[in-house]
């Protein structure tokens, strides 16, 4: 089962939940935790593992050949991403804007834009007993998260097809990176906080998941602050709230030290047990 942990709003507990859930589950069975927030991965702060693999990741971008180019302008016209600018006597390529669609390269009448690899980031894999932890990180200056997320997902699929439980720590927001990170998930957990900001962004995330036709549930973090609007909204929309993690100073203190919460905060562990119970039920449903 693939479980993506997402949120609309940032800072609501995606990483806290992902890391604790993954390590807790890995006490009993093999788990792959993947940090897909490639713009600033931080699950690794909570995982103590041994580095077992490291590779550079590349995307394909066009490279202009001035000697054969006739400056017909076709490449600029077909580029949907404004990655190509045509000046009086030259073509300029902006690799950060390129989506590697190959249109300019394939449609160039004189083959003056061959595609070449450009490094966009790095993937690292760590092992800690039954837990495999994978994280990818974009290089500074790279603007496109989606290609790296897609390649990271492929790496997990190709290397860990036999592991039943896969947890994906998704980027925040509701734009392309989130869609890429959640599109293969069997279950999406939307974690939010019970505040007006949390509710506003939760609604956007819910609409996104409905559009993607995803099975999703809600977890409320820092329950006790704010108001009841998130609960009322979920009830009205028939969205199950499976867990409410209490607002607690003990949790904040442990988190700020980079500690895993379920080991030291019993009320957090109790909520995690509820979530694991829910996942077990889903697994049994799928097996039947």
């Amino acid at each position, binding site marked *: 089962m693939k479980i993506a942990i997402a949120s609309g709003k940032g800072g609501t507990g995606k990483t806290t939940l992902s890391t604790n859930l993954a390590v807790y589950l890995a006490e009993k069975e093999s788990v792959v935790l993947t940090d897909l927030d490639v713009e600033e991965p931080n699950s690794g702060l909570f995982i103590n593992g041994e580095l077992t693999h490291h590779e550079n990741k590349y995307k394909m971008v066009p490279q202009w050949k001035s000697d054969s180019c006739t400056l017909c302008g076709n490449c600029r016209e077909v580029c949907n991403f*404004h990655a190509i600018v045509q000046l*009086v006597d030259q073509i*300029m390529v902006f690799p950060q*804007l390129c989506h590697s669609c190959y249109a300019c390269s394939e449609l160039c009448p004189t083959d003056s834009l061959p595609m070449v690899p450009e490094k966009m980031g790095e993937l690292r894999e760590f092992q800690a007993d039954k837990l495999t932890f994978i994280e990818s990180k974009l290089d500074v200056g790279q603007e496109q998260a989606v290609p790296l997320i897609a390649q990271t997902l492929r790496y997990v699929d190709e290397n860990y097809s036999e592991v039943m439980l896969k947890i994906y720590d998704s980027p925040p927001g509701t734009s392309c990176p989130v869609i890429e990170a959640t599109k293969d998930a069997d279950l999406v957990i939307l974690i939010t906080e019970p505040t007006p900001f949390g509710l506003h962004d939760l609604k956007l995330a819910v609409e996104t998941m409905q559009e993607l036709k995803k099975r999703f549930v809600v977890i409320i973090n820092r329950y006790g602050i704010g108001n009841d609007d998130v609960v009322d909204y979920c009830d009205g929309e028939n969205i199950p709230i499976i867990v409410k993690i209490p607002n607690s100073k003990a949790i904040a203190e442990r988190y700020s030290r980079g500690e895993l919460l379920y080991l030291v905060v019993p009320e957090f562990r109790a909520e995690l047990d509820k979530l694991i119970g829910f996942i077990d039920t889903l697994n049994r449903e799928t097996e039947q």
Partner: protein
Amino acid sequence: MKIVFTSKGTEWVSAIDPRFGRTDYFFVYNKDSDEISTVDNRAIVETAHGAGPQTAQKLFELKPDVLITGNGPGGNAARVLAQGNIKIYVGASEMTVKEAYEAYQKGELKEF
């Protein structure tokens, strides 16, 4: 000589648009013929990424001698503009087009 301003509107009294890539209009003043014209760039709002190079391409096609704007172009747009002989002046954010032109003539704007 052709001077292009990034502007919020199509009049001399329109405000300068401080943004380059996402400017609403180009206000074009041809000093030699004393004629003005404008280019509507508002469709740029639909562009999520790459506004800078796209607008720079549009500016380039106007073949201006001088660009007067507010904050100054970002990295991508600046890379394009550096390929042309366009003098860029910034710091006109709070002015109207007319005020910016006067400030430029008095040498009060900063060259980018």
